[in-house]
């Protein structure tokens, strides 16, 4: 019953000096007081920041940031990828990644045009929409570790008493994009976990493909 909502909002911004031809992808996981009493009112919570950080590393190559640049050095798209949890019953990470991947897969950027006189960029209402091209679709699978046994998709009660967590992110071609482990485990445990992860990831990917709209 863990529920999250992901939304993507686009804005214009000036690219950084180091990367004048790049747009920005800014993931943010919000765990408000709504979803669980363990989060205090007033942002942000540590768990949320940690998750946002993980998402940021996960999505480093997700899309071609050069494509998001409109006027090099002056104007680029910044996409705020926000995931808000409305019910936290454990394993928010998997839900967040799935929601975000689904949202990214269905992002349509409106066309823009440059006004000659002022050099500003505005939205072009007649230009139609362009789909955001993703290099890969990340899917996350989390398991709880208890001694040397693993339990996939932990609920909150299970998370409270676990020894550690293994989170593995695959992409749609079964490459491993990220692997985090916070437990003391052996090689075999990881290998066994990866077998399960592959199966689970394909299930999640099929669900994601079902909700994707072609146009």
């Amino acid at each position: 019953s863990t529920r999250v909502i992901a939304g993507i909002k686009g804005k214009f911004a000036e690219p950084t000096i180091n990367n004048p031809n790049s747009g920005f992808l800014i993931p943010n996981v919000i765990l408000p007081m709504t979803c669980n009493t363990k989060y205090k009112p007033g942002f942000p919570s540590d768990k949320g920041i940690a998750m946002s950080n993980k998402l940021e590393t996960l999505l480093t190559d997700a899309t071609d940031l050069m494509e998001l640049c409109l006027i090099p050095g002056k104007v680029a798209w910044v996409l705020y990828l926000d995931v808000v949890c409305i019910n936290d019953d454990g394993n928010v990470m998997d839900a967040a990644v799935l929601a975000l991947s689904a949202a990214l897969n269905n992002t349509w950027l409106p066309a823009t045009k440059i006004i000659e006189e002022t050099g500003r960029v505005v939205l072009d209402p007649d230009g139609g929409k362009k789909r955001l091209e993703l290099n890969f679709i990340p899917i996350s699978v989390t398991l709880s570790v208890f001694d040397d046994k693993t339990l996939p998709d932990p609920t909150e009660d299970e998370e409270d008493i676990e020894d550690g967590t293994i989170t593995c992110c695959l992409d749609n071609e079964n490459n491993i994009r990220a692997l985090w482990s916070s437990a003391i485990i052996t090689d075999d445990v990881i290998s066994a976990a990866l077998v399960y992860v592959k199966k689970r990831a394909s299930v999640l990917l099929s669900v994601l493909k079902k909700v994707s709209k072609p146009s």
Partner: protein
Amino acid sequence: AVVSTQSTGESAPLKSVDKNTTRTDGRKWNELRPLFLKVGIITKAQGSAYIEMGNTKLIAAVYGPKEILRREEFSLKGKVNCEFKFMPFSRAHYCEPRQNFEEKMISKCICDAMEGVILLEKFPKALVDISVQVIQDDGSALALALTAASVALINANIEVKDLVVGTTLRYFENSDVLVDPTAEEEHGPFSKFTGGAGFHLAVLPSLSQISYLKQTGKIEQSQARDCIETCWETCLRLATGIKNLLQESIDSDAPR
């Protein structure tokens, strides 16, 4: 459980209004958008309500009564704390994750309104946390937030004097009135929708009392009274539907 109210207007005190104008979404001037309401959808909360009115969607969660951790805040009456937030993608512009001034103000409004209805004497030294998150704002967010918060309180079995039902009304200088405005009608950029006044009214239907009233803009006194009466009548219309729904969910012992 779902409630859908699509009732058209009855007798209206505002005689100057052209009753035949149709709005962009095809409604009449005093027609409400269809309402969807579901309780108990946040399993972690003691009470919760998800409410949709047209395209305005929001969710309210109630945690409590719980112990106040700081000992010096002892009081014979319970305390209420409310947090209202627009999700970053809920409005036309991007909303920062941190609460801005407007959200803090609306939080305080909801807090004040709920303090009036909750029987705080029943739980001294305790705290009730209300959290309202707006998933999509297409107008009338404050009024819906008040309604959702009160339904969530009831779902949490916290004793309240009455249900709180909220409505928004928009009054224009040419005497046009729109009940339950969309975001475009409420603060639209087009000159057609600026000027005039806005009313947010929350009513306790069984007790026939006003729980919360806010008016912005400029309006004549006589027109103001008529506007408030129209809001009141609209709230009562909504209240019957919401009460039936709550009764259903209690009868069917809906899983929380």
